[in-house]
């Protein structure tokens, strides 16, 4: 069985590479056929731009700027969201009172606020962090509330009858039962953080990958615009897979009982 999976993985990897190659070939054929606007770059041009970007200092500093804003905004959102969520989710009255406000907030497209935010805070890295934090807050908050709310009635009753102290209850009952939900919220918001950071840079010309994309587009350097887009996707993909992996390890106990 073990060796079987190993050789199967091999062929799977090669087939995956083949799929990517086919996609790229289709892309190139479409370019040659002339159905796309003439400025769209071909595969070789994008590939050489990707290589060029890796060697350039501009790319690395843009990447660092984007990542810094995304990660700091995300961390702020995770801390605030978890604390607020645990509080709101465990106090019923608070849960009811805030539900409309939270529903409104989570369905609010924060990027639509960009002109307003730029007016208030200027096109700075701090502004970018604020917008990222505002966007990442909702998934964490909503998930944490769900997690804190959803406790088996038997557990709730047991805790009440034995008059478990509040802090112990929080640490041993509330937190473990909410953790899987919080983890999902954290994972979702991590992907959002990159998306929003790049989006903010596109709209406000704050330094970072997003700004490089618009600059390249304005300078008619389409190949490098696509190269930066590729890296933006790669970063998002890398973060999502990493967190998925981490969640699987940390929450092993939960997955096992669920399956």
């Amino acid at each position: 069985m073990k060796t079987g999976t190993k050789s199967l993985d091999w062929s799977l990897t090669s087939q995956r590479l083949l799929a990517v190659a086919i996609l790229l070939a289709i892309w190139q054929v479409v370019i040659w056929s002339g159905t796309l606007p003439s400025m769209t770059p071909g595969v070789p041009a994008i590939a050489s731009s990707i290589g060029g970007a890796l060697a350039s200092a501009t790319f690395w500093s843009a990447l660092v700027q984007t990542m810094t804003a995304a990660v700091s905004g995300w961390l702020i959102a995770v801390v605030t969201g978890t604390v607020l969520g645990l509080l709101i989710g465990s106090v019923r009255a608070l849960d009811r009172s805030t539900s409309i406000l939270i529903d409104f907030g989570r369905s609010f497209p924060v990027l639509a606020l960009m002109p307003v935010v730029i007016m208030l805070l200027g096109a700075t890295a701090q502004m970018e962090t604020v917008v990222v934090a505002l966007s990442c807050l909702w998934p964490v908050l909503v998930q944490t509330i769900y997690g804190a709310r959803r406790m088996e009635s038997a557990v709730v009753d047991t805790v009440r009858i034995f008059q478990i102290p509040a802090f112990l209850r929080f640490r041993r009952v509330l937190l473990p039962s909410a953790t899987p939900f919080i983890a999902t919220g954290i994972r979702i918001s991590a992907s959002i953080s990159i998306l929003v950071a790049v989006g903010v840079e596109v709209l406000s010309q704050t330094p970072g990958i997003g700004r490089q994309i618009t600059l390249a587009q304005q300078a008619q350097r389409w190949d490098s615009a696509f190269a930066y887009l590729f890296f933006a996707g790669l970063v998002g993909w890398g973060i999502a897979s990493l967190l998925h992996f981490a969640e699987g390890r940390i929450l092993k106990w939960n997955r096992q009982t669920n399956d």
Partner: protein
Amino acid sequence: MTDTALRPDSKTEHPALARRSKVERVRSRPVQLALNVLQRTWLIVVVFAIWWVATADSSNVFIPSLESILASLGRDLSNGVIASGAAYSLGNLASGLLIAVAVGIIGGLILGETKRLREIVDPVIHFFRSVPQAALVPLIIGAFGIGQGPKIYTIAFACMWPVLLNTIDGVLGVEPTIRKFSKVYRIPRGLHFRKVVLPAALPQIVAGVRVALPIGITVMVVSELFAANKGLGFYILNSSATFQVPETWAGALLVGVIGYILSLLFIVLERRILGWYFKSGAK
């Protein structure tokens, strides 16, 4: 009937548990209902009141009073400036979402049913999903112009991935026994998709569309903030570029309200489409 049978008798209940239920029983129904409504709405009223009072005599040019924001919102809504823009934007959103749902469901059904294909294209799908939607906007608009088509394609591209991935998950969740049944009775492929796989995956698909909706709204606004000559995003951008600050706020606020209303409408729609599902006891 079964509900009461499952619950312990109130006499044998622990006093600590009985206390809470007694308090709830005392109030009459209308009073309880009014209290519920009050409990749900007071905070939003307070927030708006604070906003109103705090900005009432604001001297900061960039923070206009809520009164003037609402006044300009009311004016531009009634004279049709915003309304036509909103109709344009929402039309784009609807077309984009429709394309995304159609492509996502069809692709998801195919990929969900064929394990090999799914495994092969899995990394590609996850990569495309991770591409920042807002970053696509300059490329697509730069290449295809500021017309309606490019905006719809961008929305469709961004909204497709959650629908696709959720459809795949939904298809994978089809009860194995039902799947075997369908195979044993040699249900034709088309019928199998339409009557077995699709209904079973529907709750997941609807959840995917729910995720796609706010993404679509964001891309809709961003595509117009970037380059447009009409629409809600254009209204916001244009008013901020001409320093009509209350109008900028009004536009952003309106987008938020539209987002909220659409998500409420979607919940209603979801209840209708999935009535059978919620009735079956799933939460």
